[in-house]
């Protein structure tokens, strides 16, 4: 068997491993095994690559490769192991971004390495695609990381003339792509690279923090496609297949995630470009209604003398990293004999299933967690529904307002409880951008502020009551 055939065979084994990994990750029982199979496939492929003459023939280059891998591993493994569970989404974002960056660099380096003007047009197109998509993914993921890590605001960022500016950059990139194909100029390619990075950033800026999971999933698919483009450039079936697998499955996953949030993908990606969505249906105007804001002491008394309290956590709790404080409050209430349970919406938090992980991390007893269906039965007999940083997942518009973008999305029926308390930073709508009539309900009391601060105050108030 020739070396080339052996290489193809080993890479085929890796490819099968990747397919089985995706398959395994789609089922709760085999998910962990699937991940291990994928990692094994990766290990086999990388180990075999060291036996290729392209890799080992120049000793200096081989040494550099080994040093670079060591650096990556020394940074990556501790970062991935030590990161808190709440910070998982941004870690996924940044690990995705660096993959996109690597794919873009492969394309750029191949372009520089090629003898001048010798590249076939389709080669240049492959390279440009890798540079464009890889750079968008890198810049977009970096901004997503910054938003989730709260290095910058998680709110959608809009600026005047956003659409014209974005369109101009888009047009400029397309024009420069054509110029690069015609002239094969390295300078133009570098400009394309810079503009692609800018495009990735401005693409992500107007997307709110709550939508970043869907965004990261989309950028993940982008990186997959950039890797596939690198595969075309390097004539590597392995890269084409693995990259395309991720590109295709990632696209489907992105769609499923946005469906789970009851929204369409274009709505998530572009809704901040237009004015704020005002799909509150035939409901009365927000200005005409009054909101009752309470003090922490009042609410503390209300909670302390309730028989049954439901804590409904949402994105705001995840943002404020308030899961430990929520547990303190639950413990303080339980110490007074109040029955406390958590009502968990399936898409509460930053990602589907994220809230369960967060509360598990805060050692919330499992029997206090109630899935949506159970919680909805219990809410009829609940005295206080304490909504912590959630909004859309309790919005009755999903049941009552057929015109609403979230109409049909299952919600937690906080409105069934005798009293409703909202811990919110402001009257700002949730990520669906729609008004929540529950905020104006006579049964509702608002406590404005950061979820963690508000919960701390409530803990003190309950203990004092």
């Amino acid at each position, binding site marked *: 068997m020739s070396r080339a055939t052996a290489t193809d065979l080993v890479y085929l084994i890796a490819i099968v491993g990747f397919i089985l990994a995706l398959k395994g990750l789609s089922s709760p029982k085999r998910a962990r095994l699937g991940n291990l199979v994928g990692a094994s496939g990766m290990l086999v492929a990388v180990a075999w690559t060291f036996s290729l003459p392209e890799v080992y023939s120049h000793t200096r280059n081989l040494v550099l490769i080994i040093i670079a891998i060591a650096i990556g591993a020394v940074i990556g493994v501790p970062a991935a192991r030590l990161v808190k569970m709440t910070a998982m989404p941004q870690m996924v974002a940044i690990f995705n971004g660096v993959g996109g960056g690597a794919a873009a660099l*492969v394309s750029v380096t191949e372009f520089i390495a090629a003898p001048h003007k010798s590249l076939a047009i389709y080669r240049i197109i492959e390279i440009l695609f890798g540079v464009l998509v890889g750079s968008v993914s890198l810049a977009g993921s970096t901004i997503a990381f910054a938003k989730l890590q709260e290095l910058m605001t998680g709110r959608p960022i809009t600026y005047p003339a956003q659409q014209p500016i974005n369109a101009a950059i888009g047009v400029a990139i397309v024009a420069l792509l054509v110029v690069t194909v015609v002239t094969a100029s390295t300078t133009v390619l570098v400009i394309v690279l810079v503009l692609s990075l800018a495009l990735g950033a401005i693409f992500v800026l107007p997307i709110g923090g709550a939508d970043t999971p869907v965004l990261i999933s989309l950028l993940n698919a982008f990186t997959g496609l950039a890797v596939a483009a690198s595969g075309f450039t390097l004539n590597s079936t392995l890269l084409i297949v693995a990259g395309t697998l991720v590109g295709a499955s990632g696209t489907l996953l992105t769609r499923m995630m946005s469906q789970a949030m009851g929204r369409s993908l274009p709505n998530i990606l572009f809704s901040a470009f237009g004015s704020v969505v005002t799909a509150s249906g035939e409901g009365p105007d927000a200005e005409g209604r009054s909101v009752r804001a309470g003090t922490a002491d009042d609410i503390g008394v209300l909670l302390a003398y309730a028989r049954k309290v439901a804590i409904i956590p949402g994105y705001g709790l995840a943002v404020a990293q308030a899961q430990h404080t929520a547990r303190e409050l639950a413990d303080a209430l339980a110490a007074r004999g109040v029955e406390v349970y958590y009502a968990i919406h399936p898409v509460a938090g930053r990602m589907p299933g994220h809230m369960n992980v967060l509360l598990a991390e805060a050692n919330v007893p499992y029997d206090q967690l109630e899935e949506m269906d159970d919680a909805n039965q219990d809410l009829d007999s609940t005295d206080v529904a304490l909504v912590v940083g959630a909004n859309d997942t309790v919005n009755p518009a999903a049941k009552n307002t057929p015109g609403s973008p979230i109409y049909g999305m299952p919600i937690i029926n906080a409105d069934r409880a005798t009293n409703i308390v909202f811990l919110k930073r402001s009257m700002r709508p949730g990520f669906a951008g729609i008004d929540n009539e529950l905020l104006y309900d006579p049964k509702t009391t608002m406590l404005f502020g950061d979820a963690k601060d508000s919960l701390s105050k409530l803990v003190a108030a309950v203990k004092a009551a």
Partner: protein
Amino acid sequence: MMAAAGPGLMTFITVFVLAAFVGYEVVSKVPSILHTPLMSGSNAIHGIILVGTMIVLGQAHGTAQLTLGFLAVVLATLNVVGGFVVTDRMLHMFRAKPADRKAAADAKASGDTAAKPEDGGAGAAS
């Protein structure tokens, strides 16, 4: 026309199209509770770019190529090890309380009907 494009290109395109279908089919049924781990896991898989970066750095000449190639290998390694380790940690949390996860997996939020309050999640998912 194909000959001008060079030998193999058509084969690569075929592989690309078939892989796209496989990728789409293989994750067609994922419970919402596994969306995040699946995203993280597939994130690790595109770390295969590491193999490409190794080949590029292995053949690099001159400071520019060596620098870019070196950086590419570092980034790709981060992608691979970070991706797999993070995914494994997520799935470890999932294994801790299986009953908890199972129920949530069933309660997938899909908005096709005006679901009654009581049967909201599970009813819409099935």
